[in-house]
């Protein structure tokens, strides 16, 4: 089944990715992530002393601030902050620096579809740039289901609005290990088969959802490769002292 998308991509083709780290001078870690025309800037400050009131002082705490491009901060922004916070809490090793707060500030520069996945990817890269200890990276992707049943990856804003339903999926990054038997397993399955976060909008059938997961997981392998290349290239950064 052939599908024509406005920008000429195929069903499973992602938009061109671009990522640069260490772009801000005051922030401890910063990254800019763009998928096609969607561009997000993330900055990390931390760890700072003390945790917020209702947080557990025996663990590190993560605080997310989402800044939209224009306008007041409303409920959608608060929802994004909560999703980001929970996703990143499961990715970071919280027991290393107890009773500290790490703040992640996300600034939307341009929104052309798949905003939340771009923000999650940007936030992960910023955390790497800041040197916050993490178990693995979170790789986020957006899948849409159309009325006629086919699934496309990484939609633009127009495509997102026309689709019946879409899902934001976050997977752990794919693992390249020297000993395949020694790679991390959770209950017998390799760790990359897990899902960290899934947010859906609209109604889709169960089969469609599982198909999205499959496509999303395949795309996350490609995204992981991109991240690996990007991080290895820029690994000659000077250390950030205060």
């Amino acid at each position: 089944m052939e599908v024509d998308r406005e920008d000429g991509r195929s069903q499973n083709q992602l938009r061109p990715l671009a990522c640069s780290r260490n772009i801000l001078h005051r922030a401890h870690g910063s990254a800019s992530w763009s998928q096609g025309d969607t561009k997000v800037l993330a900055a990390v400050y931390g760890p700072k002393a003390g945790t917020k009131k209702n947080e557990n002082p025996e663990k590190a705490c993560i605080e997310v601030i989402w800044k939209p491009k224009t306008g007041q901060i409303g409920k959608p922004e608060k929802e994004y902050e909560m999703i980001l916070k929970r996703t990143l809490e499961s990715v970071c090793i919280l027991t290393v620096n107890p009773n500290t707060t790490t703040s992640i500030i996300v600034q939307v520069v341009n929104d052309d579809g798949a905003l939340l996945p771009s923000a999650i990817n940007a936030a992960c890269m910023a955390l790497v740039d800041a040197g916050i200890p993490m178990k693995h990276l979170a790789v986020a992707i957006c899948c849409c289901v159309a009325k006629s049943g086919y699934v496309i990856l990484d939609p633009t804003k127009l495509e997102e609005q026309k689709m019946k339903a879409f899902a934001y999926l976050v997977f752990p990054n794919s693992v390249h290990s020297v000993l395949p038997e020694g790679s991390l397993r959770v209950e017998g399955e390799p760790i990359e088969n897990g899902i960290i976060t899934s947010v859906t909008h609209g109604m889709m059938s169960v089969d469609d959802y599982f198909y999205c997961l499959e496509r999303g997981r395949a795309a996350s392998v490609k995204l992981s490769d991109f991240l690996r290349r990007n991080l290895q290239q820029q690994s000659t950064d000077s250390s950030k002292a205060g």
Partner: protein
Amino acid sequence: MEGRLANSWRLTVNDKNFIKTALLSEIRIDGRKPFEFRKISIKFGREDGSSEVQLGQTRVMGMVTAQLVQPYRDRPKEGILSIFTEFSPMADPSFEPGRPGELAVELGRIVDRGLRESRAVDTESLCILAGKFVWAIRIDLHILDNGGNLVDAANIAALAALLTFRRPECSLGGEDGQEVIVHPPEIREPLPLTVHHLPIAISFGFFSNESILVIDPTHNEEAVMGGRMTTTVNANGDICAIQKSGGEGVPRRVIMQCLQLATSKAASITKQIKDAVEVFNTERALRKIKRHPTSTGNDVREKQN
């Protein structure tokens, strides 16, 4: 790592003394001369009205949007211009999210005064139907990185965004000519704003020794200086605004010297902004030409097998 755990940043006494002593011999810690501006780089986003300005280590993003609203009752034939400043917590560890603090409000007011009261943006051309519909232009300034001298960078970002912004064209229609029809950008080309002149803000820092004056202070110098003054001038030599709020007193001849310096710097900065806008407009025109082969209603459709 210890420096990170503290939430506030303070300059040590040694650093402060070093900066002051170096200035006595006209040396600044980043190697500039006292009357030298840092390198300005102006970039634009994909859409109209979005700019990103980098002044040395300071980074500011400007966004311009427009909406049709009812005009103020005492000015029924004029459009509305409003400026919102956001000191994003990513710019500085001491910036808190939430309500803008006094620095943010002061910055917003300086940029606003430069644009509004000098009539740089023509608000009468924003009126569509007197008393009923006018365009309200909203400028959002996001401070992304605080490397010192936020006012100047924010001002340049606001000007760059205003010069590249385009508002949709609209016409009057309906039975009695009282309805406004807004044409989408694909049907009719959106229009740029009328900007008569570019008010450029230039900031100066004064140090405890009266004759020491620097232009474009970095945030280390801002922590040491005794007073600051921002002058908003344009390339024609008109003074649009001067802001000196507190700090040490300076003699009259120093103020005159500042104004002369500001006028000469304003000319070069105006040229830089105009050149950057030219480049963006050329690119935009090229993009429009390339868009035509694929822009005719390509809905997502499937080929029947």
